[in-house]
């Protein structure tokens, strides 16, 4: 009689149903050996880095394993939008501080809006997106200053938000440096909440640069996601650090961790573009 049971387990490992493979068991965090589900997340999903594909191995909703993949980045000769001012400056063009500051503020507001939407704080997420559009469209500083500072303060003061995401995706500065992360994720030296606050403080600092017509300082080559003059585009390092942060996280936490790093897949084309520019 017991053979029936064993047979059951074998059937379990080989079957195909309705064109879909049946789930198989595997070791997991809670030592329950539950069924494994292979779920690709991305490339197109709202509030998700466009083009990023994570091939997750889920047990329940715990991420057991993750492979980072992305759509092929077309090698068009168009600079990645969010890094454009710094790259142009590196190529010797004249770029005003106003332009760089606007781009940085908008990039961080964009990232923060995405993170807050994933966290489920729709109200502030919507405000961040609206402010991003206003900053990008060249609204004068007086027009956005008050609104922006109010939003930044609201994010910084929210205890529920801190309660909700503190401790997710802990990335120490040492580890970040070792992987080659630069920019706010390195400076934040901590979890998703620290990274969000770092974005917010950079937005607030960036306000001072608005409407500043002087040219960009020659040593300022740090875009919103890190140094653009390094050997690799900054988002590549963020992608490299993803697997170690995501493994063992629950699905919701995994989404928050990805959003708190917010890699920009456009940047991956950067290596070839900047290489060509130098040549």
């Amino acid at each position: 009689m017991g053979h029936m049971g064993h047979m059951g387990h074998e059937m379990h490992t080989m079957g195909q149903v309705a064109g879909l493979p049946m789930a198989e068991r595997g070791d997991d965090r809670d030592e329950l050996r539950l069924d494994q589900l292979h779920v690709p997340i991305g490339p197109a999903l709202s509030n998700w880095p466009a083009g990023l594909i994570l091939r997750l191995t889920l047990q329940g909703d715990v991420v057991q394993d993750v492979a980072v993949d992305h759509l092929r980045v077309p090698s068009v000769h168009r600079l990645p939008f969010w890094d454009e001012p710094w790259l142009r400056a590196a190529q010797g063009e004249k770029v005003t501080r106003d332009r760089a500051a606007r781009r940085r503020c908008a990039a961080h507001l964009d990232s923060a809006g995405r993170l807050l939407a994933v966290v489920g704080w729709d109200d502030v997420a919507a405000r961040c997106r609206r402010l991003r559009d206003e900053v990008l469209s060249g609204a004068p500083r007086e027009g956005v200053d008050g609104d922006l500072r109010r939003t930044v303060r609201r994010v910084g003061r929210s205890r529920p938000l801190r309660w909700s995401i503190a401790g997710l995706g802990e990335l120490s500065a040492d580890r970040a440096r070792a992987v080659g992360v630069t920019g706010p994720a390195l400076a934040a030296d901590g979890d998703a909440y620290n990274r969000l606050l770092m974005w917010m403080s950079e937005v607030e600092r960036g306000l001072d640069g608005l409407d500043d017509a002087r040219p960009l300082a020659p040593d300022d080559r740090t875009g919103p996601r890190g140094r653009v003059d390094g050997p690799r585009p900054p988002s590549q390092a963020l992608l490299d650090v993803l697997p170690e942060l995501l493994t063992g996280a629950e699905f919701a936490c995994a989404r928050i961790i990805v959003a708190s790093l917010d890699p920009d897949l456009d940047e991956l084309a950067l290596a070839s573009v900047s290489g060509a520019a130098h040549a």
Partner: protein
Amino acid sequence: MLDDVIFWVLALLAVAGGVMVFRFDSMARATYALLTSLLCVGGEVLLLGLDYLGVVIVLMMTIEMAIMAVFMVMYMMNPAGLMPMTMVHNKKGAAVICAAVFAVLAAGILLAPWPSRRGKPSDDPTMDLGLSLMGPQMLTMMTLGLALFATIVATVVLATRRGRYDRFGDDLKARTADDAVRGGTGR
């Protein structure tokens, strides 16, 4: 008249649901067939004038079956029943035993000289139940309470893999618990 109709509908649904529990391949469907059956049991109890107990059965069974479905999907192979398979043993023998049991019970039910109704239900049977449980049946209530408490302890001990020494270190001095997922009270 209306009561008769309700009785028959609920009774047939209950039996049909009970049979379907063991005929569905899909674990989810089997669980919800059982829920249907037990909800009908709750309905019959309501029909008998036990409002409180009937509604409590509906409440408890809904929650219980919802949780049961998770365990079914978690532990059973082939939870969606997409691959028909049977996992039974000794079907014939069991069928004979059960038919015999039913026959004996039915014979007993139909042949027994049931006593006639003594007294009539009070206006508020729920109050009766409460007074009884807190009075003459206090011992039952206390036993039930203890049994439930023992169950809570036993299930946690059985199901968990990690005790407080795993969470707070050998000397229990760790300030925050070493858990795979951080909780909400900041401990």
